[in-house]
């Protein structure tokens, strides 16, 4: 969910003039409440072992429910992942079964990407889980973008030391950096390729790059995006996965 949220937060804030921190985070939360999306995306994964590209269709409603169905390659087509709250289910069309991912396996890679199952369901309560402050603004002399530092609240179940979110003066997200508590960069999510989509200009790629893993990355590209689509809550139930 972290990718959806980070993206959604910025998608929602496009067009606002000189937003305050509260506006920014409120916007993310407002988007989360009752809003929904439907998108076609491409995911490219490069590791030292393999490279693979997948096309998927995704639906989301609020911050706590989303559904991703694989369209290609043919071998994996139809595999559907449901994420609700902190739970992950997979529907496997070949064997026609729905499996819930047990706790001990939440650390596994999702579809061979650099996202773990855990990543998919974590980080979906930005304003609840983090304290935010500006560490830079365009025109402050040293920066040409908004830089927001997100520090996990003391009790939040988040391993990161802090997140640094960079937003361009055009109000489009540039990247998010993940640091551990020693301040060492662990991974970077970069946003790029701004294009008009769903009636707005948004970055259409998100690239996750883990540090110290020569050239490995996972890149997600929006092929199409619709916002505020009609989706019933029953779409996001394990029972509905087979449909």
């Amino acid at each position, binding site marked *: 969910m972290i990718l959806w949220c980070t993206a959604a937060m910025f998608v929602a804030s496009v067009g606002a003039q000189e937003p305050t921190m509260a506006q920014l985070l409120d916007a993310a939360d407002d988007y989360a409440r009752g809003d929904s999306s439907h998108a076609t995306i491409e995911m490219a994964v490069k590791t030292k*072992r*393999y490279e*693979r590209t997948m096309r998927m269709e995704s639906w989301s409603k609020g911050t706590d429910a989303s559904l991703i169905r694989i369209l290609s390659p043919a071998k994996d087509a139809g595999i559907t992942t449901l994420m609700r709250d902190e739970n992950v289910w997979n529907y*496997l069309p070949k064997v026609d*079964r729905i499996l819930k991912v047990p706790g001990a*396996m939440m650390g*596994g*890679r999702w579809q*061979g990407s650099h996202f773990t199952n855990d990543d998919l369901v974590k980080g979906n309560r930005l304003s609840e889980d983090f304290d935010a402050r500006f560490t830079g603004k365009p025109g402050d002399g040293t920066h040409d973008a908004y830089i927001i530092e997100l520090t996990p609240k003391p009790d939040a179940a988040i391993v990161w030391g802090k997140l640094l979110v960079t937003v361009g003066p055009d109000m489009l997200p540039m990247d998010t950096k993940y640091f551990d508590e020693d301040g060492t960069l662990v991974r970077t999510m970069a946003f790029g390729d701004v294009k008009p989509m769903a009636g707005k200009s948004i970055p259409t790629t998100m690239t996750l790059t883990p540090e110290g893993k020569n050239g490995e990355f996972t890149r997600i590209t929006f092929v199409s995006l619709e916002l505020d689509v009609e989706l019933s809550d029953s779409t996001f139930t394990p029972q509905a996965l087979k449909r």
Partner: protein
Amino acid sequence: MWWTFAWRNLWRQRRRTIVTCTAMAIGIAMTMGIVCFQDGFNQEMERVMVDQRLGHIQINHSDYPGRRSMHDVLGGVEARIAALESDGSVADLTVRLNGPALVGGETKSEGAFLVGVDPDRENAFTDVSSMVVEGRYLASDRANEVVLGVQLAAKIEAKVGTEVVVVTQAADGSMGNELFLVVGMLSTGDARLDRGGGHLHIKDMQTLLVLDDSAHELTLRVHDENMLASVKSLISANPGAAGATVRTWAEVDPQVEKMLAMNQSMNFFIMMIVLVVAGIVVLNTMMMVVYERTHELGVLQALGMRPGGVLKLIAMEAMCLTTVSVALGLILGGLLDWYFVSYGVKFLDGDLTFAGVRFSGRMYGVVEANMIVITVVSAYVISILAAGWPAWRASRMNPVEAMREN
């Protein structure tokens, strides 16, 4: 002449000789029995460890032992097997492809560690079908079958005859998923397998993991297990082990090796106690025999026998006495060993689970020729030492004084 003299002396004191011989013989027999049981126990432990878990020699990708990553596989495994099986030093082998998986029953799923095996080879190697507590083991050919650890099966509510889905993270990043028929349940004593593991056909596992013709582990049994180091270098040169790491079972699991070593030193400790006790018995018997005859030895010296002669006579008597005892001891000990070897000793109702393997509660003895030699030689050494001291004292005694004794 001297031997005849010594021998006749021994039988002059028939009662004493019989009593002494019986004591020594029983000491020897008991030592033989204990050693026979201990050797049987140790060999059985090592055999079960080797058969069920480790093999004599394992061949892996060089990074697999340290990282245990799914990607560190041996390729071209069919050709490797063929090359190894044509190697004269290899007795048999089994091949395994391991991987974490999600195993799902109708409603519940659990993470598991599955092992892809060639069912016929695995069964010949580990006799795994004897550990199937319900249903049967895998069929020889791939047939989308799986056997699950009993506790894992209970957790996901899977029964023999039902289907489970196995989901893996394949080597190419895709999600392997397949339905398998549960044909049996395993109870091996290895908690990891019983609680969270299972076996399936290696071909099925290769498909699930997208690792064709690959394996993580080639486990061999060799003909000459006592020469593992040289056999290891021989196998390292086999094309079947090309570019791979070859390890003996002690290198694979140093803990088991240490445990067996500790067991051996513990046994050695016990054996030493037994020998010391047996030695004391022999010592005090011989001392008694010689002391009681101080008077007689004095007479012999008075009749002109030199001190060296007395020493020689007593040593010879001791040899004769020991020989009779050893003969008797070997017969008694042989009977005891025969019983242990053929009927075994039941030391526990049911089975004993230890360090991930399961032993029968009845152990059979093993006769090791060198241990019998050690026991017999010890008996001779101890009795000669035991006779030597009083004999030496007697030989140095003034004949008059000696005659006055007793």
